[in-house]
């Protein structure tokens, strides 16, 4: 029970941090989706016996919520990193292409 309370408090603190930065930097769609997932998880771990499926899936402890959130965050971060890298690569290709075309025009 104590672990449950501590876990929920930590989750609330994390949610507060997200909302604080949302106020400063504005809301984007990704943060909204993430907050929604967060709130759902918060409800699920606050009331561990709300749904039978919850118990079947072993999703009861706050730790389960942390693990799920960490996995989702890691996945989203890798995707964001991949997209940024891809854009940089495309920019690089554009520069290399224009150099190649200019050089051929010169010669």
């Amino acid at each position, binding site marked *: 029970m104590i672990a449950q309370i501590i876990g929920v408090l930590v989750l609330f603190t994390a949610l507060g941090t997200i909302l604080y930065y949302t106020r400063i930097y504005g809301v984007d769609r990704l943060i909204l989706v993430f907050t929604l997932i967060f709130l759902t998880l918060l409800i699920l771990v606050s009331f561990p016996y709300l749904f039978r499926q919850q118990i079947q899936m072993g999703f009861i402890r706050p730790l389960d919520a942390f693990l799920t959130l960490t996995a989702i965050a890691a996945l989203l971060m890798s995707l964001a990193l991949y997209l940024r890298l891809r854009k940089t690569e495309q920019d690089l290709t554009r520069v290399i*292409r224009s150099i*190649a075309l200019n*050089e051929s025009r010169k010669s």
Partner: protein
Amino acid sequence: MLSGKRVVVVIPVYNEGVVVQALIPALPGFVDKVFVVDDGSDVKVSLTLQKTKKVTVLRHIINRGAGAATATGIVAALSTPADIIVTLDGDGQHDPTDVDELIAPLLNGAADVVVGSRFLADYASMPYLKRLGNHVLNTVTLLLYGFSCSDTQSGFKAFSRNAAQAITISIDRYGFCSEIIGEIKRHNLRLSEVLVSTRYINKSGGTNIFDGIEIFLDLVVERFRK
């Protein structure tokens, strides 16, 4: 046969200068211009290639991939009054004399893009892994774009000028062939396939599982970006 149409050939090359040297003289006489895109080869292709007025070498100062090299060649070809643009792999696997059969559907107005397919006849001589990879990518292309053909990964293609202008190649590496098929669907272009002969060269390297993941990710991103 050509009724005044200008044919430009694009050959992306990476460390295959010697092969290209033999490839260019074998191209049909009606080819007006050849753009060889040296994709950052260790030895500059321009050093090994005999310079003629017909052949222009473009050089990527660093390797950017087959897709990027092909796109550079097409951009260069579009800067000339080309009516038909043919892309040909630089590793010598395609027979340059097949160009006239490849462009025939474009000349008679039956297609906007023609793919030189290795799968329209018996392809038993194709290495098993290559065959499997091609079938997997054909399926991935079909699932992502709802459109496919017998050989989505063929580098031997012919484009009408309008098709080449409409198609955008954003994938720098291996996935660009599937992207072209998606672009054909997106712009409602007419696709035709022609059987071409292929020579399989024992080459080390090729694609591995990580390339496969990269191709898949690139295709998924491009599918939802466009």
